[in-house]
C-alpha cells in the first residue's frame, strides 16, 4: 500500500523530510533522474532515465504502466 505518491521532476528538488510519510513513495521523472537520491523508497521512470543515458539499477526502474498501477493504488499523487 502506498500513501502519497510523489512525482519529482527536477534534480535534487525533493519535498522536505517533514512532508514525507513512512508509507510514501517517490518516483523520479524527467530531469530528476539525473541525480539519484540517498533516501530509500524511490524508483525512476525507465524511459526518462534511458533517454538521458543515466544508469540506474534495474530494480529501481519503472515503466509507465507500472507507474499507472502505482497511481491507482496510491492514496493520492503529488507532483513536485
Amino acid at each position, binding site marked *: 500500500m502506498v500513501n*502519497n505518491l510523489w512525482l519529482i521532476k527536477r534534480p535534487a528538488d525533493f519535498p*522536505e523530510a*517533514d*512532508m514525507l*510519510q513512512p508509507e510514501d513513495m517517490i518516483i523520479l521523472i524527467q530531469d530528476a533522474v539525473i541525480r539519484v537520491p540517498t533516501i530509500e523508497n524511490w524508483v525512476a521512470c525507465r524511459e526518462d532515465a534511458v533517454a538521458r543515458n543515466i544508469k540506474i539499477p534495474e530494480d529501481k526502474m519503472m515503466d509507465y504502466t507500472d507507474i499507472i498501477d502505482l497511481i491507482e493504488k496510491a492514496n*493520492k*499523487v*503529488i*507532483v*513536485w
Partner: protein
Amino acid sequence: MAKKKIVLIIKSNPFSWKAFEALRQAVGLSMGHDLTIIFMKEGVYTLTDWKPQMIGIEPLDKSMEALGMTEATVVAEEEAIRERGIKLRQWPIEVKIRPKEEVCELVENAEVVITW
C-alpha cells in the same frame, strides 16, 4: 458527488503568469470543494506588494477578491516568509501564517493536492 478536501500549493515561480493561472484555478476549485491554498518556498513572494502589470502580467486582485467570497482558506508558511525577510500586503482575503508543521499536516490530510 461529494466535495473533496483539496490543497493547492503555490511554491515556485513568483512574479509570473503561473501565479495568475493558479489563483484563477483556485477560484474554480473553491466552487464545489473544500479548498486550502498554501503559499510556501518562493511562492510566498506572490503575497507581497508586487506590481504584476509593470511586467505585463494581469493583477491577482480579482481572483483574491473572488476567493474572499468563498469558503476557501489561504495559508502562508511562516518559515518561508521569515527566511526571505518579506512583508505581506493586505489582501481581500485573510492570509493565515502557519508553521511548516501545520502545512505538512494540511498536505497529509488532503484528498487532492495540486502544486504550482
